[in-house]
């Protein structure tokens, strides 16, 4: 009898459901919001202006070097070929030219898929795949999407996890040996 009373005093089913609901809201909605800090790119770079407006190809900036390594994001050397001086009226371009290019500073772009230091990834070994199999398609994007940084690990939300690399390697009968991807 005594135990029954204790159960009744604590509120019963309603309080339990409210607790479950609160846990779900915290776990699925609040915590993920708190976990990732939202950051914006230092320059509002528009792919649309370059790809659609100027008719540039992806590999004009994202190219392979002669030794097969991938250049990734272009540096001042590449951007400066056109943006030595302010060309248009976009304030973002002016900011790049005056605050970075003319100061001789590289733009600290936030890389959505930045990998940990001990990962060795060769773009050139994955050339038969479309870039968008792994990367978000930004070709006709006018303002770069926000970058979500994990406050605990420091990595981007979009950093590819090891299980995705391993799954694709396994499905294509490619070795999953440690040193294939690690250094």
């Amino acid at each position, binding site marked *: 009898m005594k135990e029954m009373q204790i159960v009744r005093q604590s509120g019963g089913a309603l309080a339990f459901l409210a607790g479950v609901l609160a846990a779900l809201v915290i776990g699925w909605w609040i915590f993920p919001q708190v976990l990732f800090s939202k950051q914006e790119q230092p320059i509002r770079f528009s792919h649309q202006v370059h790809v659609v407006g100027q008719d540039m190809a992806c590999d004009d900036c994202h190219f392979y070097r002669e030794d097969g390594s991938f250049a990734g994001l272009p540096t001042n050397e590449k951007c400066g070929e056109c943006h030595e001086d302010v060309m248009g009226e976009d304030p973002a371009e002016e900011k790049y030219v005056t605050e970075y290019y003319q100061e001789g500073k590289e733009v600290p772009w936030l890389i959505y898929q930045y990998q940990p230091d001990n990962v060795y990834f060769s773009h050139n070994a994955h050339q038969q795949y479309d870039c968008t199999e792994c990367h978000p398609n930004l070709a006709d994007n006018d303002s770069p999407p926000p970058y979500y940084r994990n406050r605990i690990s420091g990595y981007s939300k979009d950093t590819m996890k090891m299980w995705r690399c391993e799954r694709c390697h396994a499905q294509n009968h490619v070795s999953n*040996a440690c040193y294939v991807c690690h250094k």
Partner: protein
Amino acid sequence: MTHHEFKVKWGMVIDLDKCTGCGACMVACQVENNVAPMNDASNKLRTLTWMLVYELSNHKDFPEHETAFLPRPCMQCGAPSCVPVCPVVATDKNEEGGIVSQIYPRCIGCRYCMAACPYHARYFNWLDPVFPKGMDKTLTPEVSPRPRGVVEKCSFCHTRLNNARQRARAEDVDPLDFPVEWYQPACAEACPTGAITFGDLNNPKHEVNRLIKSPYAFRLLERLGTDPQVYYMSRRDWVRYQGDNHLAHEKH
């Protein structure tokens, strides 16, 4: 111990008669692999030397006295003693080429592998690596630095292999059979007397394939059955004799 066989077996032949013990290989290795300098490098219980030059002596008096130097990288054994003892599979020999891998973030620092390795080729990070101001700019981006608490060892400068494979793909060459100059570890590159020859032991186009068949070639502690991928050479009998442990009545 499982024995691993691969189509490609990267290996080294070190000619001990050419080695002068200068230590250039050790320095080149530390620079290439981001090994931080120690506060007190005279404390040999704490130093990290993926490549270590040992001094051998024939223990004879003056007119007959002779010295030899023996550089010791990781032997990349065919049947590695370190791999089966690792409780977290942080070390494995599963990649084409036969280089024993060591994945630092996975290592829990139990040091079983160090106890297992008969060649003392593995080292533990007792301290956090500290690179003096300015020296951090000379770090190799190709090699990930290790924190305190993990074990590390020679990887035959593995990223150089990955880069060579990448170059092979770019130039339409078979990534399993590219010119040997494309992939040479830092020690072999730095050796001023050319004592270290590096290549694929199974590839008849590579010099090492010929050298390991020499009657003067031997491996360290061969009788343990670890089947190392590192060979040594010497024309001096006493040097070859010291490559293994022998009982008093045994002759070489």
